[in-house]
């Protein structure tokens, strides 16, 4: 994620939030589009920035399943 968004941060752990990695809404929008393109799931900007990477993964996984079901 840090590489994709070109953040000046150490490689992210699962418990890091996007904000804690120095990201701003700009990054969130980019990521939102990418997740939407790859999974069909639209994750709110608030969740993208405020959730940990582990939480995001769970959220995207659950919503993708719902979308497929």
């Amino acid at each position, binding site marked *: 994620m840090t590489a994709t*968004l*070109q953040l000046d941060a150490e490689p992210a752990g699962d418990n890091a*939030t996007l*904000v*804690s*990695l*120095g*990201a*701003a*809404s*700009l*990054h*969130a*929008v*980019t990521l939102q*589009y*990418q997740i939407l*393109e790859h999974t069909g799931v*639209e994750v*709110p*900007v*608030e969740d993208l*920035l*405020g959730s940990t990477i582990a939480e995001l993964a769970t959220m995207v996984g659950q919503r993708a399943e719902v979308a497929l079901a």
Partner: protein
Amino acid sequence: MSVVELLRDLSARGLTITATGGDLRLQGPTEAMDAELVARLRAAKPDLVAHLTGQAGLALTPLQGAYLYGRGELVELGNVASHVYHEIEGAWDVDRLERALQSVVDRHPALRASFTAEGRQVIHDHAAVHIRVRDLRSLPGRARQDSLAAYRHRCSHRMLPIDRPPLVRAEVSVLAEDRMVLHVSHDGLVLDGISMFLFFRDWWRAYAGEPLDEAGMPFGEYVAELARARDRAPAQRSQRYWLDRLDDLAPMPDLPLATSPSAVTRPRFTQRLVRLDAQRWGELRRRATGAGITAPALLLTAYAQTLHRWGAGDRFTLNTTFAHRPPIHPRIAEAVGQFSDVMLVEVAVEADAGFEQRARAVQARLHRGIENRHFSGVEVLRELGRRGSGARAPYTFNCAIGYPGVDGSALELFGRETYTVSQTPQVWLNVFAMEQHGGLVVQVDGVDELYPDGLLDALVTGYQRLLDGLCGGEAWTDPAPDLLPPAQRQRRAAANDTSVPRSDRLLADLVVARARRQPAAPAVIASGATMSYGELHRRASHIAAWLRQRAVGRDELVGLVMTRGPEQIVGILATVLAGGAYLPVDAALPAARREYMLRDGKVRCVLTNVDGLDGLPDGVEVLPLPGGTDPAVEPVDLAPLPGATLDDLAYVLYTSGTTGSPKGVMVSQRSVANVVADCTARFGIDATDRFFGISAFNFDLSVYDVFGALTTGAAIVLPDADRSADPALRLVMMSGDRIPPALPSQLLRVKPDLEIVSLGGPTETTIWNILHPIEAADDGSRSIPYGRPNANNRAYVLDAAGRDLPDWVVGEICAAGVGLARGYWGDPARTDERFRTDERRGERLYRTGDLGRYLPDGDIEILGRSDFQIKVNGYRIEAGEVETRLVGLDMVKQAAVVRQDGARGDRLVAHLAAAGDARPGIEEIRAQLRVHLPDYMIPSAVVWHDALPLTRNGKVDRTALTTATPASGPAAAGPAPAPAVPDGLAGQLAAVWATVLRVGDVPHDVAFHDLGGDSLAAARVLAEVRKLFRVTIPLDQLYEVRTVRAMAARVAAAQTTGGTP
């Protein structure tokens, strides 16, 4: 050859070309039409037709549309481009610089765009770049600097022609072989903030010989994506989100202004900077990040908190831009163009919240806004305009931090940027935050002309102080860190440094001492009779003895129910000699009000000069004052009551109350002695002076007449109403919140050696606690300042939380010092509410309810009332008290009273909504009110409404009421008759609308927006109106003329009055 170039060629030949129904028509001298030209026209016919009918090229993005529209001079704060100007110092190979710039323009299609007045953009295959060189080497040093300054003045605010791409210009001033200035201008139509960085980076890379990457993203793809996105679900969701919020959207920040925005016809911007070095910015960012706060939220919150301190209000809406680059092309991230959009952000600065809490709230708002980014802020503003709710969002905030791979450092790749400024149409104050060389740079560009002197300097310094405080840590926890510039604080401390020692002698002692020293000297001069100090003392002392016999004690009220006359002065002196406090009651008051005051004041003894006084509460003893005394009778020698001090009450004055009941203000002898001693010393009062006692005795100015004169051996003159000024007049003490500005100069023309002083202060601060000596600058051209506190008094302008407000910012005037009253008679709750101990200052404060502001010279200016207490012809009236009585009348459902200027001065006007069909006239209403209210509280005019106008907060809109036209007789509100419109005028206007809106038929009563009109179309219609009819209608007034019929009426009215309506 492009269409634009072809049209330019035609123009140069004196030819004009029009398109009708798909055909071209060429007009002009035939010798200018050759076969080659005709062939070129034929070849370009489809493009020409499209161009001439406004259909060529691409649509604009919402922000581009706003920028183009803002170039028009009909727009408030328009007549300016979205433009950035840079000056960079260094030395370069100019040819290489030009080739590099050309390659950047060649790479990015958006840079090759031209724009049409119809609101389209055309991307050209080629747009030639030329860097002009200004060789200043031969100029002497001073001339060179002048040349650079003049060039800066001209170029820093330029409007690059929209039909001549690229909308980027570069020039080089050569100062020496190794010293040059690179001047760069670029327009917001083709470059957003991130693109500005990308543009300089690409230019530098090309200059350095690095090959630029493959061709940039076609801008048309972006425009097409925006059009497609409008039909998708997120756009519909976003539209609902914003439209649902419109009715409750917070207003724009309400900062103090020096002039009306519509008066600024050519805005010029000045840039101020806020900076944090790399280390401090890094630490602050880390702290914010640790708290889960992004850099934009951090900086926006600090900016909002600064605006709040400078008067923006507790809740307001800011305008932000955000980079909107959806992943529709592999190289969109590196594309140069205008990819930003506008987003409104509401900010609430909660009084007790810490910075982190506020920043979280702002961040949440930002994120919700971004979530709903698919409905542009431009469209939100347009919808607000359509609803007539005001479509201003002139405080903008932009943050270009965090974009991958590029930041503000790119601006200095060619060398140090020594000057930069930006302009944005319709914007008053713009913030652009970026990172540069690791540090933070915030550029604040504002229209200085709009703001009072020094305000923007102080505000930007305040923003810097707040960011410094956040770096230091303290501003994270303090809900309102001190942002007041130190120079302002020092000026106020100097103005409040008023301490003067005072004696402890009682008021009665001071007067008696005078009477003993000069018994034969005149004390009271009335028409046909003069009372000496000796007689005054004799009479007063015998009455005091009568009061003592009835055990009148300290802080007990003695009623003086009198008509105007010398007995009032005798009664006042008698009361303080006895050791009590006087309560003046105008004998002409309605019986009910008189009785209320005497009963509420627990009055046992009344002194009167009225024969057959009746209607007094049971048990009250009345002493009619004798017309004269036997000169042989000696005065009674009365010792002070045991324990008597200067802190005993001198008097209680009843003023109007908000709940329908008047309130009694308790004033101590110390407060009176203090202001009297101040005036005696300040104005050199002595026994030779004569005081004109023109104030009523239930008005506290009379207190100074009595004790100012009698403690100095001077005399009070009670002039007849028809007497004019005495030729020996030397000092005029003008009292009132707002003195008519021209009055002092008028007086000085009559008597040039006159000393004039403006004095002010509510009853609760004892006669006056603030004054301003009239000086040469008070020549009628400015409002007269309220002034500075007198001896032993202090004054402040505070916000609701009791914090000092900066110069020019309106707050509540608060008073401290010896002048403060003891409180309200029998009303400890109200006393506690208005008189509070201020922990921060360690002193007792009285919140006056007067609105005011500090001026940069340390004076305070008064601006009105914070509640609805109003002053009419010198009387302070609580609107609530009058309204309570009005609503008590059977026929009135709703009432509001306001002060309005009338032909003969102020007047109180009642605005009423009827309870039924009856709408009685003013005389009937006045008669009913007279039962309860004194004359000065009875409205002199009435306006009937179907319902009183309300603000967006649902409260009665008193501002709107002050401009409603009153009628002095019976009045009924009804629709105004439709104005007459000359035959043909509406038809001509309808034709203009039809042409601009491209509709076949324009009904005369359908609103402009309902016909599909937008801001750009409105600008074109109004420009055409000006051209055809020589009538200027500002764009912000479109709402008022939104139908052809209304516009025709406006044009007709303007034509009869000659131009601008």
